[in-house]
């Protein structure tokens, strides 16, 4: 007679395919998953609590450390929320550079997703290739902000500084070559029988279920929901750009893979349009109440120095009220909800992390499949624990 007892197996928090410190307690019937219980919080740093004790400018570096694979998207979401609260208009050049960088960030994040997702499933070559291209984006980060990951480049009202001259050529060359690289990845994966066996029909979640459980971003579009905040709830000037929103049909891991790859091609097009729009001009709003003064004036005039000191030490007082700003981060809807009581620090800053909500679907997507398929599901959800645990 067959033994029908289930077995409990611990997976993580130190496990190469849990993308950080995710711990899963699996209940198994043989190799088939009966129940998944995620345990999170190993990386909890209390970002929301810390933010209540810092001025609006001082919170910005904390946001880099949420989704550390897409720092500029986090920066963008946060500064847009503050700008909404303060009603600050951003100069056109700053807006364009923000979009270029946000899309390069999307490419970067998707490249890491593709690399790790493929590696988890067993395709190692793609990992090496994707990290090669990511390196160029990291170099662009370093070129403009001095840091490869925690860029902290955007500012409330614009950018911390203008981009150097080499920027346009570097980004332009990269965008020209990127579609060719994407063809390379597709050549390795899209028709690869092993890849197809592992991804087609894996982690299926219907459009209704996906909306119900709150999935956003590429994972939602992979389930056939035509929804992209850049187009449908436009922010940061995305309404001036033309791009397609890819949508999946079969709601499985393969469709989510296709959606992300098409998104990368569309990102290249957006960056190209951004480079064409790029015109000389100021990169910081003329709003001395809120913005830092330009560095030249800080170093060369006493007024500028006093102004800098005042903004750096006291910050600025925000009007009483509350705002929510959602942006289409690479992983889904990243939202910042700020409650202001009229002081220079937020009364409450809530970060709506896309990975946290998306991870909730893991049980629904993996029960009934094998442990190896669970690894594919973790990869396709594209989670980052820095953002989940905050």
């Amino acid at each position, binding site marked *: 007679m067959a033994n029908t007892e289930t077995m409990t197996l611990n997976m993580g928090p130190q496990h190469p395919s849990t993308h950080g410190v995710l711990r899963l307690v699996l209940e198994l019937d043989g190799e088939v998953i009966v129940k998944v219980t995620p345990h999170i919080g190993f990386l909890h740093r209390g970002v929301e609590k810390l933010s209540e004790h*810092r001025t609006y400018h001082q919170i910005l570096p904390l946001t880099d450390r949420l989704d550390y694979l897409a720092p500029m998207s986090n920066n963008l979401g946060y500064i847009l929320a503050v700008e909404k*609260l303060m009603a600050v208009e951003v100069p056109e050049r700053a807006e364009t550079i923000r979009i270029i960088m946000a899309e390069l960030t999307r490419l970067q994040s998707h490249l890491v997703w593709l690399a790790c997702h493929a590696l988890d499933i067993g395709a190692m070559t793609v990992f090496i290739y994707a990290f090669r291209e990511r390196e160029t984006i990291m170099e662009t980060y370093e070129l403009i902000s001095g840091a490869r990951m925690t860029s902290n480049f955007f500012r409330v009202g614009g950018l911390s500084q203008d981009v150097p001259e080499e920027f346009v050529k570097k980004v332009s060359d990269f965008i020209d070559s990127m579609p060719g690289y994407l063809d390379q990845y597709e050549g390795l994966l899209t028709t690869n029988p092993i890849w197809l066996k592992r991804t087609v029909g894996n982690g299926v979640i219907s459009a209704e279920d996906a909306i119900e*459980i*709150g999935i956003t971003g590429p994972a939602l579009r992979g389930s056939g929901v035509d929804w992209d905040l850049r187009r449908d*709830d436009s922010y940061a000037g995305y309404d001036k750009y033309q791009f397609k929103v890819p949508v999946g049909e079969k709601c499985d891991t393969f469709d989510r893979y296709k959606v992300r790859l098409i998104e990368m091609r569309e990102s290249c097009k957006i960056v190209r349009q951004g480079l064409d729009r790029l015109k000389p001009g100021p990169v910081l709003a003329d709003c001395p109440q809120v913005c830092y003064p330009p560095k030249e004036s800080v170093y060369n005039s006493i007024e500028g120095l006093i102004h800098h000191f005042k903004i750096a030490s006291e910050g600025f007082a925000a009007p009483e009220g509350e705002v929510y700003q959602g942006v289409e981060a690479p992983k889904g809807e990243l939202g910042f*909800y700020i409650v202001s009581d009229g002081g220079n620090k937020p009364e409450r800053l809530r970060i709506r992390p896309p990975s946290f*909500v998306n991870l909730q679907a893991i049980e629904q997507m993996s029960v009934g499949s094998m442990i190896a398929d669970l690894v594919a599901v973790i990869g396709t959800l594209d989670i980052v624990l820095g953002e989940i645990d905050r």
Partner: protein
Amino acid sequence: MAENNRAVLKLKEKFAASIIDVVEFRGEVTVTVAKDAIIEILSFLKQSLQFNQLTDLTAVDYEGKKEDRFMMVYQLLSIPHKDRLRIKTPVSEAVCIIPTASQVWKTANWLEREVFDLFGIVFDKHPDPRRILMTEDWVGHPLRKDYPLQGPDREPYKGRLS
């Protein structure tokens, strides 16, 4: 503006007695409602007005600033209508319990666990009422205003915080 919002119109028609306040700030509409009617109102918004996604659920601690200490905040999104709505409801410290919204949207499950973990608000009939970010044996609720920033068993930081 807020008066012409499609959801506000319907809510005023159907739940006039439960609406405490309607505010518009920077183009965002916030409706504050009474706690007793919260599930009824959320279900109505989902079923009849197609607010099919619960984007976010969180709480705010107004210790000493408002009569009711906590404020629950629900951020709703309607994908078919492409609009958002924020629903708030006050929760007092004395009766720190509110019905769970996870019966309306599944999303609320983890989000409510987080609010319970960090604020100590209890969700009635929650399917899985455990802590989520802090360890299970943790004492206290870190996002409450009276919880020290440095943690409970450490000297307060004497240097400059901001």
